[in-house]
């Protein structure tokens, strides 16, 4: 199995990236973040396509980068299979030649044959990239990257240029293929659903820093800090006055919680789809609906609590729902409320005791 240890800084035209993480025996690690968060740059740094301004990258005990010692392996020497966003297939070569490009002559035919079979591309082996569907192109790009038996397989938003319906199908296909690969995979995406579907471990990035990392399930259920929560789909944040065992006091009264206590938490958060309209109870807020948008599958309600707080609620479109300007009660289920800290700027703040997988750690 493999280890990857990354502690790098990178800066270009005002953009700064500063990332430290470690992967141990991790299979699929997803780097999730908004556009411009630096996730693709991080992937390029791992592949050797960009040179960090400082830091080290170690893979399986081998130093790929150590800027202070003037070590920086070329992309050729790292042997990372890189799948680009738009695949970057060689348009002048057919499918078989694309797959075999990185393999030495003696082993080429065998590698091509095996991957054509595995990726179900035998029927198009003589076709050129321009003649392929989106799904076939993706498989060729994967095959080309896998043919070199990479130390790491790096996927840079491999499905972002594909339309919604096709993307769902290809996500399943990609997941199935990835599950059969025996090298560590790092996939970059801004799509929350894609991250949920693929990730064993998750690294959340924002503004060039990684703000939360760990086993995917744990990160998704406990975002810890406000920025991570926002990226993972939490939209409503209520500031806390004081936190107690089982409840939190807020400007809008006492709210009971049934969740992991995060030390120094400053915010209560809840996802829009977890809020229900209902009668006044101990965990409810009286609000005025100011706006309703119908998105087909669900309606989005903008509810004003007072001048300082509005809450977003998503309810299924076929459910009977109140109209604009009506005054209603929102029920905040204690089990759906989450505590988060204020935005953090250091990795120390998000360090959690994960037993395996992906570690955010302070590097001294």
């Amino acid at each position, binding site marked *: 199995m493999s280890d990857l240890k990354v502690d790098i800084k990178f800066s270009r035209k005002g953009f700064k990236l500063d990332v430290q993480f470690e992967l141990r025996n991790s299979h699929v690690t997803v780097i999730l973040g908004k556009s411009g968060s630096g996730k693709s740059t991080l992937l390029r740094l791992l592949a050797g*396509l960009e040179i960090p301004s400082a830091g080290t990258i170690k893979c399986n005990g081998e130093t790929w980068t150590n800027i202070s010692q003037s070590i920086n392996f070329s992309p050729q020497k*790292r042997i990372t299979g*890189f799948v*680009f966003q738009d695949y*970057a297939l*060689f348009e002048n070569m057919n499918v078989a030649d694309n797959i075999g490009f990185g393999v030495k002559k003696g082993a080429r035919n065998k590698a091509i044959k095996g991957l054509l079979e595995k990726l179900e591309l035998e029927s198009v082996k003589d076709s050129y990239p321009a003649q392929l569907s989106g799904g076939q192109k993706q498989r060729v790009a994967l095959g080309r990257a896998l043919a*070199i038996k990479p130390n790491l397989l790096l996927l840079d938003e491999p499905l972002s240029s594909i339309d919604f319906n096709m993307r769902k199908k290809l996500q399943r296909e990609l997941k199935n293929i990835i599950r059969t690969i025996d090298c560590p995979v790092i996939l970059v995406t801004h799509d929350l659903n894609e991250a949920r579907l693929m990730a064993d471990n998750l690294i959340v990035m924002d503004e060039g820093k990684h703000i939360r990392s760990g086993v995917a399930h744990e990160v998704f259920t406990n975002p810890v800090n406000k920025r991570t929560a926002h990226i993972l789909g939490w939209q409503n944040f209520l500031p806390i006055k004081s936190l107690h065992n089982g409840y939190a006091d807020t400007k809008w009264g006492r709210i009971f919680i049934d969740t992991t206590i995060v030390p120094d938490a400053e915010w209560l958060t809840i996802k829009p789809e977890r809020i229900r309209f209902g009668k006044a109870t101990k965990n409810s807020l009286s609000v005025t609906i100011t706006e309703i948008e119908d998105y087909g599958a669900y309606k989005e309600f903008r509810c004003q609590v007072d001048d300082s707080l509005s809450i977003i609620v998503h309810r299924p479109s076929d459910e009977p729902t109140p109209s604009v300007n009506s005054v209603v009660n929102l029920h905040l289920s204690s089990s759906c409320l989450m505590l988060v800290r204020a935005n953090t700027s250091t990795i120390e703040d998000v360090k959690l005791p994960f037993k395996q997988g992906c570690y955010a750690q302070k590097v001294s």
Partner: protein
Amino acid sequence: MWGGLLMLNFEPIILTLKLAFVTVIILLVFSLPFAWWLSRTSSRFKPLLESLTALPLVLPPTVLGFYLLMLMGNNGIIGEYWFELTGSPLVFSFTGLVVASCFYSLPFVVQPLQAAFEKLDFKIIEAAYTLGASQVRTFIFVVAPMIRRGFITALVLGFAHTVGEFGVVLMVGGNIPGETQVISIAIYEAVETMDYSSAHWMSFGLLVFSTLVLLLVYSFNRKWSVN
């Protein structure tokens, strides 16, 4: 009229083809890295270098020829150095003609190559690198096939433009049979001496040659754009 064809002096034709061949080889060797650099750089000197490269497109050949004559003459910076080095003058020689032709045909080679490089998706080069391919292998198997249209256009236009040059050649090379008398100058001399038969056959040959060359370029471009 046909008799004129048999009487034709082939020396200027051979000299012209030799000049065009040598010029285009030198230009390709120089222009490939230069066009690559121009296509990738964000240097503040880029507009200046692009303008200097494109100058032969807008300047009268006599202007370019005049300054080249000044530079390459025995008292010019290049000419003086050349004379010290070789003991023979650079102007009114075949070598001088090659140097002048390289300046004159530069934009016809650099610009198609630069356009081809600019159209090239840099990610395919990076993809080749991550697959372990060296820079040389990447250029031969990935870059070259992708820029072949630009390459052929540069090659053919550079060659054809050198074949057709007149003003610069006359200024720098003069009219020495077997040394600097290229086809366009031979035509001019034939007309001057009222040898219209020779002028016709040489002009007609150049006309056919130029048509064929352009036909070749457009056919290649059409074929590759269909593919």
